[in-house]
């Protein structure tokens, strides 16, 4: 079961390293699969989708320096949420599943992929991702466990689903029944055009925000303020 895997220190360390790599670096890595994707009828769309998603990396990498009182630095930046279950239902296409997997990986998460109705395709994609350097601790293909079992994964932080509207209701109920962390559900219900995945702020749902405030005066930061007081203007 994934609990054992995900609770172990090695997984934690690999996930931290993956998260710290940065969005652009992960996007560059993931971009190398675009031209190697398995042949399907929607290959062109898949390539367009991945390119569009990976192009957002720079924006996500950009830490916001926030205006505030002097003597402090305040920065808002983004990080992956952690262990993410990506589920592809029977009714959906590989296109939406691929989009969610790549989005989740690019945003610094570890992915458990469960797409039993697209088993062969999922296996090919995972193999490809491993080949280009996605660590095996970061991407796990899980076709044998049931969705219920996977939803019980203790360390789960995010659930992504490519499915129909009615399934989202059921998934929402199952997630809400869990104890512990509230696991957000991110869905792509448009398996043909992936119209949600392409929206400008959709990837923000895959990440968590971190604010870092430093009292810079404790490490010499007041020197620049003092210089301002002597400015010749």
């Amino acid at each position, binding site marked *: 079961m994934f609990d054992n895997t995900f609770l172990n*220190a090695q997984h934690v360390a690999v996930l*931290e390293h993956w998260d710290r790599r940065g969005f652009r670096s992960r996007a560059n890595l993931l971009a190398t699969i675009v031209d190697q994707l398995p042949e399907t009828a929607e290959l062109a*769309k898949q390539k*367009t*989708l991945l390119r*569009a998603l990976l192009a957002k990396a720079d924006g996500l990498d950009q830490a*916001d320096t*926030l*205006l*505030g*009182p*002097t*003597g*402090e630095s*305040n920065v*808002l930046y983004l990080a992956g949420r*952690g262990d993410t279950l990506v589920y592809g239902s029977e009714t959906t296409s590989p296109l939406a599943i691929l989009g969610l997997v790549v989005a989740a990986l690019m945003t610094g998460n570890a992915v458990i992929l469960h797409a039993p109705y697209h088993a062969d395709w999922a296996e090919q994609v995972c193999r490809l991702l491993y080949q280009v350097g996605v660590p095996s601790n970061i991407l796990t293909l899980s076709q044998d466990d049931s969705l219920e079992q996977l939803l019980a994964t203790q360390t789960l*932080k995010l659930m992504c689903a490519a499915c129909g509207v009615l399934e*989202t*209701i059921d*998934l*929402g109920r199952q*997630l*809400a*029944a869990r104890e512990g*962390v*509230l696991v*957000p*559900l991110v*869905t792509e219900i448009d398996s043909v*055009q*992936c*119209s949600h995945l*392409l*929206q*400008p*702020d959709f990837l*923000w749902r895959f990440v*968590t*925000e*971190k*604010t*870092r*405030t*430093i*009292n810079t*005066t*404790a*490490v*010499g930061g*007041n*020197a620049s*303020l*003092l*210089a*301002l*007081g*002597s*400015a010749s*203007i």
Partner: protein
Amino acid sequence: MFKTSDILDPAYLNQGAASLWANISPLYAADESVILRDLMRLATPQGNELAKSEQRATTLIEHVRANAGAIHMIDALLLEYSLDTREGILLMCLAEALMRIPDADTADALIRDKLSVADWKQHLSHSDSLLVNMSTWGLLLTGKVVTMDEREDGSPSSIINQLLNRMSEPVIRKVMQQAMKIMGHQFVLGQDMPEAFKCGKPYRAKGYTYSFDMLGEAALTQSDANHYFNDYWQAIQFVGQQQAKFPNEIPASVSIKLSALHPRYEVLQQAREMNELLITVLKLVSHARNLNVAITIDAEEADRLELSLQLFEQLYRHPQTKGWKGLGLVVQAYSKRALPVLAWLAALAQDVGDRIPVRLVKGAYWDTEIKLCQQKGLSGYPVFTRKEGTDVSYLACARFLLSEHLRGLIWPQFASHNAHTLAAIMAMAQHNRFEFQRLHGMGDALHDQVIQQSGVITRIYAPVGNHKDLLPYLVRRLLENGANSSFVHRLADQRCPVAELVQHPYEVLKSRKTLYNPQIPLPSQIFGAQRVNSSSPNIAIHSQWQPFNAAVKAHLNRQWQATALVNGQAVTEHSQMISVSSPANRTITVGTAHFVNASVVEQALQTASTFAPEWQATPVEQRADFIRQLGNLLETHQAELIALCQLEAGKTVQDAIDEVREAVDFCRYYAQQAEQLCAQPETWLDLSGQQVKAQRLGRGVLVCISPWNFPLAIFLGQITAALVTGNTVIAKPAEQTSLIAHRAIELLLSTGIPSGAIQLLLGDGATVGTLLTRDPRVQGVVFTGSTETAQRINRNLSQRDCPPALLIAETGGQNAMFVDSTALPEQVVKDVVLSGFASAGQRCSALRILCVQRDIADRILDLLSGAMQELRVGDPLLLATDVGPVIDETAQQGLLKHIEQMKQRARLIAQTPLPATCDKGTFVAPTAFEIQSISELGREQFGPIVHVLRYEARELDRLIDAINATGYGLTLGIHSRNEHTAAHIEARAKVGNTYINRNQIGAMVGVQPFGGQGLSGTGPKAGGCHYLPRFTHLVALES
């Protein structure tokens, strides 16, 4: 209104001290341009003063520069490593922390942290000083050696390099510590009085005298205050004995800091100061008078000025002081109140009949003053924002002090290291009834010249104490000397033309476009064009406190009535009336609240859903305008809201002010953000390459469920975010704070916002909350509160037969603070007390687990224990109260139960005493326990309880893992001067908000977006740029 032109009239002082006192406080943050225009009249050079001062200053500078021995090694070092360089800052940081670190590993890590990141090579052979160049070589080599066990990418290098590094570390550490001691020696005369007296002998032979200062910063505990008292006592004793031995020498004096003599030297504790501190200082004064050793009371932060003057007056008028001319005071010229303070002191001397020695300094806390005012949103600064503004003020004050009618009233002592200032004073003076002062280790050559040329007495302010206590003082001196722009720095820099150094500040200031510094915006303007900062009175300043207090008091006896507000109408039918009492005193009734039943909930849902399309279609500018108006109204009604927060939620004065400010900030921030977000459609390409154009629209009906701990700020933060993005809102505040919620919605409705947009439902969660969160008309819930309630809401929402709704939940935290041995213990403890016990610990962000590196834990716990004894728990209406009540009996009983359980299995470090007056309210004494493991903690305890855990430096990562494993991830505090360590902890900790080297509460809207992860919340962060988009959805526009 105070006018400088009046004070040169001898009759002016005849008004008496009591009358002139009234001039001081109103100038606290007065218009800088107005004050400076006035001061410039007094500072204008008269007759040939301008030429004389320039000429004299030129001569002084030329003499100093011609003297080969005038520039100390330390000056040359500071010249090369000025604070405008990264290397200069790193050296200063190393100097600040290295000597207090008890353990070798952490000391080595700090050296590595500071020396490995700088570019020492660029400083090689820059300086004319052999010593400086040698030091640079040393730093360069050390920087290389300390990074030998790392490759460029930070990965470990060869075994040989690692070994070499390990072997060299003790040597490097010793050398660096020695270097820091040398730097310390520059500014400290001796480690004790005999040593100081001995070291001062050559200077006394030159004609100098001394004012000895006992090193040490503000006392946090009574024990520290006693220690400082003994130091001062001994110093006075010693100086008295030496005076008797050497009667022909100019008498030395002792400088004292009031903050060192009392653990709570603050305006808010005025009653204690005027009693306890007065007694303490009187003992020193009597002792000093008996030995005829003059005492000078040092100036400190601007908030303490009025208190220090009141204390001084009490001391000065005391029978024990009467007839003595030895009690003096320091006045800071950078203060806008400096001149009226001097006038008041002169009138006081005239009233009493004894001369007062007054040391005029420029002021050493300028950066702190600017920062605090911006943080607090005050109306202005208490200090001048330009250096030349301070210099003009200094000369204006000097002219007054040198005027003939002050003869016998004030003994002026001009402290400066600026050649022009000294020259200008000599040019102004028609007599020599004054003295100059300088700091030990600064301006030696300059003042040697002054003594030789003028014969004026010069006194050296000389710190005495051990190196550990030197550090904060050393940093202040390095900051003064190290900046490129400082006079001391430019004097040592031969490249700086003399003509630039002798410019009269009056001329310089006159040449500026504005008298104020345009690079330092007023506190209200720090967010530039984006929005106006929320405002606050400074409750430590009499002229601001008085009207504010009167306005709040006018509401304290009111009775408020709260009802549900549905479609703008108060609902009293179908409701149950609840009496609301104060948590501080349950016998005080504050008002009544009508809790609704299911039928009212249905009315609210109907109204909100019916109006949703219309509100969604309302232009964002209009929506934002209503929200901005609300922000302004909150400020207009600040006094009433503060009174309500105090009475209904038990908030202390400052907490209540901050509460209203945060609400105002939310209104202004979200209004601005929404306009930016929603004004224009967004575009992107779809998979076929076609452009999609979409408009951001509100989702529909949102339910906002808010907590009692921020009954106005979080309540309105949620509502305004939802409204401004085009959602209709049903607000369900915590039942404990219904009155505040009702008043806030009344104000919102008074902006003219359509009544269909906002519905207020009062009642308990089980009735109102459950009905709302199970209703399919609701498109989302915004919730702040417990993790358990968030889970219940999530389950309720999921039971509906409709697509999953939006849920933004901000829940609690097991918030930790890491403190390593590079941290400054006094700063740590101040931040622990504030983070753990402010607001009675009832903040989501409050500190729960303090993790202290074992090597410094004893000292930290001693300080913490002492500081907790000084906290005042009680009636939040009183200014002196630090910690008010917890919200209700349920909360109180839960916390008390936890305390009892912890007493059985953990070591009680300290518990603040509860006065008997707390019996009528729901109070919990601030308590600190020492625990052995994180696993001893269960769920979050939402109150004033801090758990302390010692850790070994090498266990840091395991401890981070353990904190992460709690599952909570809201706030984290880090105290470390090692920036690598701080960055490492910050990066590894799974938390939403990390605060480094400060307290971990009080996130500012738009500055520190707030929210956690894991069990602490879903995100996005409130008060951040990603918050509002979640309240909207993008709807494609027809092409």
